[in-house]
């Protein structure tokens, strides 16, 4: 493989090592653990459990054990749920992915369309409206807008369910199951789209504005091309190309769940799992989750980097 990639990979691994150490120490530093928080246990039983889980060993030794296991694909054992962390991740992560992938799709779709139109009509009333809307979307406190929409759409108007993935006690199957899930995910998807669409629309708008000013757009017009063709054949392609670098940055969001949204909508995703485990101080799970996001972030950055180089005009084609 190329030296550049090799260098990047080595650096990636080093950063991840450092991150894992930092994450481990931080959690180890946090006082209290799953066992001491459990009032049902006698002091003897607590000491015994600590022994079993190796919690009484020094931090560095515990870290070494944790890392060694992690390399073997074992992120430890969730204390509160009594299941391997990876099993739990596998169980919850796809729910998160579902939410993320649908909202990411809508976010990009809306952002491209609105961004292009606003750019084309720069300085029009529509553009001003879009700009205000963009800033509004970027300024929303996520948890508040979630709660607010639940209150209005679910509690007051009863259009949509307030949370969860299925109605309590439901055992729908097949198409009915799908319908129910779609019904439940509508509200969180709306909120997530709302939260993401602002900055992305702005990105596409400004990209497009830059492109429209280019000399080759003037050339296309001077050739007598139809305005539609100028916009979609000549301008849009150039405006979209740099955006492929963003794809990598979406990675952690796609698989890492959303702590706030899933918590508020009671969505059984990996983010909510984290939030629950946090109050229980279920360290293996918390560390596993944090590490997962760190890994996704690093890989995402790498992908973006590679895509950027691929998209670079001199090597692109």
């Amino acid at each position, binding site marked *: 493989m190329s030296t550049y990639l090799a260098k990047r990979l080595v650096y990636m691994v080093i950063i991840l090592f450092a991150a894992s150490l930092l994450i481990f120490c931080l959690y180890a530093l946090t006082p209290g653990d799953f066992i001491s928080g459990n009032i049902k246990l006698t002091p003897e039983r607590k000491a015994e459990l600590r022994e079993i889980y190796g919690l009484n060993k020094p931090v560095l030794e515990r870290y070494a054990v944790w890392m060694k296991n992690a390399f073997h694909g074992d992120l430890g054992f969730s204390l509160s749920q009594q299941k391997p962390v990876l099993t739990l991740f596998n169980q919850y992560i796809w729910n998160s992915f579902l939410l993320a992938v649908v909202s990411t799709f809508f976010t990009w779709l809306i952002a491209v369309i609105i961004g292009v139109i606003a750019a084309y009509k720069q300085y029009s009333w529509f553009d001003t409206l879009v700009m205000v809307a963009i800033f509004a979307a970027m300024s929303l406190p996520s948890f508040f807008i979630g709660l607010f929409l639940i209150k209005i759409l679910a509690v007051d108007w009863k259009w949509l369910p307030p949370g969860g993935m299925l109605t309590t006690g439901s055992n729908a199957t097949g198409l009915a199951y799908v319908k129910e899930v779609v019904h439940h995910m509508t509200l969180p998807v709306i909120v997530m789209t709302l939260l993401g669409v602002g900055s992305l629309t702005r990105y596409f708008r400004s990209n497009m504005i830059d492109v429209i000013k280019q000399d080759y757009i*003037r050339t296309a017009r001077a050739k*007598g*091309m139809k*305005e539609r063709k100028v916009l979609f054949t000549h301008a849009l*392609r150039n405006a979209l190309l740099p955006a492929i670098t963003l794809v990598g940055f979406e990675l952690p969001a796609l698989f890492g769940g959303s702590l706030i949204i899933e918590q508020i909508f009671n969505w059984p995703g990996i983010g909510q799992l984290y939030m629950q485990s946090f109050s229980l101080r279920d360290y293996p799970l918390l560390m596993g989750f944090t590490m997962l996001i760190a890994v996704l972030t690093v890989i995402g950055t790498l992908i973006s980097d590679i895509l950027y180089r691929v998209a670079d*005009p001199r090597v692109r*084609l």
Partner: protein
Amino acid sequence: MGDLLAIENLKTYFDTEEGTVKAVDGVSLRVKQGQTVCIVGESGCGKSITAMSVMGLVEGPAGKVVGGRIEFDGQDLLPLSRHELRTIRGNDIAMIFQEPMSSLNPVLTIGEQMTEPLIEHLKMSRKAARARAIELIGQVGISRAEQIADSYPHELSGGMLQRIMIAIAISCGPKLLIADEPTTALDVTIQAQILDLLRQFKAESNMSILLITHDLGVVAEMADYVIVMYAGKVVEEGEVVELFANPKHPYTQGLLKSKPVINQRQNELYSIPGQVPNPLELTESCYFHDRCAHCMDICRTREPRLKNVTDESKVACWLYEEAVVHG
């Protein structure tokens, strides 16, 4: 022979934060069939904006043609709808620009960009258009035409790209070619090639050329008729030999004298003092008055009109108004 292009009293203004800039302010000019007309002037004199106005490519909403007539082939272009104008652009009137490197779309192949106007205006099939494009690439003096058609702009040099731009421009057999500083961004040896190419196509097809440049050397090589612009107005125009031999306007005289010429070394170059006036602060006057060695009282308060001094030349200068000089 009639006029192919007749511009009457064209006014193109730009709204800026500080006020309205009259980039083109009452310009009239004519281009005859088969004639090469050069507009010469320094940056900001409005020569490019004049060309853009003809093409209907003045960028709104800041810039706008606010008055005048642009008559092309007997048809007034200004009232035309966007669609009607589009069928003329790239077809009857073609244009090439200063920066060949940025004037072609980096993500489309040369071939794709060349076939577009052929398909659009001449209704060619994709296949016929490609064959014609390859033929055109050969005509502008580039070998390996097939291969070039499939390459992207960044793979070619500036000189080659300008050749491609010319190929695109002549592809639909335009009656008028507008060339806006076509060689300014190129090296002298390449400039010579491009100018030769333009001359060659003009001779072959009898098209007219409206050439915009700041380089008097290029003007002398290319022009039949010259229009000198200063601060948005035409100050002098005339047949090329006459204009270079007997420049009338003090600005034209200064411009010709201040250009260093090979093998005509002077100890000190003539230089026009001062600088171009701020377009926002113009009041009625001859706009050149504060740089002019012959400035009179009337120059500061009244605008001279463009008038014939001989059959083939016009000048806008109070020095040539009999009534003022002798009255």
